[in-house]
């Protein structure tokens, strides 16, 4: 099971997904569940457990919106599965008319308008300090802002690392095939988060303080080196392993300078990945 939780800026993340679905013309369905109507706010683990058996190896994304609503999306459009997911959700939240079904390609525009309204309704956060996290250096420079709440939340999460029963892994890889391969392997024994962009990777890092990150270098927007550089500034205990199809000296040296703990050249092998995890525990 490959469930990716999107719980920070989920609205914006979903807009990106709709854009991608339309660009690639892929089949993807989403069930939108208005839990804000009943004042419910499900926990990530509860949602994962609820869908574990029925989704099998499908790669699904669950968007937790700031108002309490959720949207679960996956590739393909199997009717039986849609009904099964709806049934399961209604067992948990037995209130009528809570859900809407969307074919993200055919009804992308309709969903996009709904999400935009959600974004407009979000009140500005008075606590946000908008500290720039990235300087404008490098070719693919991106300025990412994080707020003081996110930093405080991250620091508390990072303290929990030592007591964790299960190692938490973040995979940042923009190629779906490679991400699915790596997340699929790791997910059997580790709590694994996967994402295709450094920006979302940063959100996941701040939200979960993973023990180890497998990080691709060539990413859209902020690249892997820039991501590693910023994580290294934020978190002295970070453990980053670069994964890339390139073995250029410049990339290796830049990874070293950013305090990366390993450098795996594709193809991935089970042994190389397990070695990285063994080294983490030393």
């Amino acid at each position: 099971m490959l469930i990716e939780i999107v719980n920070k800026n989920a609205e914006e993340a979903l807009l990106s997904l709709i854009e991608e679905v339309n660009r690639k013309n892929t089949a993807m369905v989403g069930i939108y569940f208005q839990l804000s109507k009943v004042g419910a706010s499900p926990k990530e683990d509860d949602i994962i457990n609820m869908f574990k058996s029925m989704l099998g190896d499908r790669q699904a994304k669950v968007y937790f919106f700031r108002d309490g609503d959720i949207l679960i999306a996956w590739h393909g459009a199997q009717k039986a599965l849609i009904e099964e997911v709806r049934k399961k959700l209604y067992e948990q939240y037995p209130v009528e008319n809570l859900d809407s079904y969307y074919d993200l390609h055919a009804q992308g525009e309709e969903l996009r308008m709904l999400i935009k309204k959600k974004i407009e309704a979000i009140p500005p956060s008075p606590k946000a300090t908008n500290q720039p996290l990235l300087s404008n250096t490098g070719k693919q420079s991106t300025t990412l802002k994080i707020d003081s709440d996110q930093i405080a939340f991250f620091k508390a999460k990072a303290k929990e690392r030592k007591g964790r029963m299960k190692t938490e892994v973040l995979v940042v890889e923009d190629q779906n095939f490679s991400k699915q391969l790596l997340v699929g392997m790791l997910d059997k024994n580790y709590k694994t988060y996967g994402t295709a962009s450094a920006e979302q990777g940063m959100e996941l890092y701040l939200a979960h303080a993973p023990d180890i990150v497998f990080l691709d270098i060539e990413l859209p927007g902020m690249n892997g080196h820039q991501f590693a550089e910023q994580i290294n500034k934020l978190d002295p205990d970070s453990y980053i392993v670069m994964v890339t199809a390139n073995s250029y000296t410049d990339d290796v040296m830049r990874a070293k300078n950013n305090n990366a703990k390993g450098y795996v050249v594709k193809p991935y092998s089970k042994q190389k990945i397990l070695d990285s995890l063994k080294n983490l525990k030393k």
Partner: protein
Amino acid sequence: MSEPVDLKNLREMTDGDKEMEKSLFQEFFSSFEDGIKALKASLGDIAAETWRKNAHALKGISLNLGANKLGELCKSAQEKNTSPQDAKKSLLAEIEWEYAEVKKFLQGCM
């Protein structure tokens, strides 16, 4: 003649999980075909960096799959991103030919 794909590495990672394998193959087809379209759209000099990025992405997924010859062709495309259009067209034809072999092989495994 050797097979177009060596699945040993991938099968170690999936622990022989057939469903996961099938889903990965489908993802590979979808990603690779999108990548070919993107290469076709970036043959001109002005899009040399887009060509390089797409070829790099295709190289990565081919190598992770175990399609080594296809990976080598994509590597060559990545490195020749500033070559004349005719040279790129010819490389693209080789990539498409090899991809067809890989797809046929994988479909036979599903």
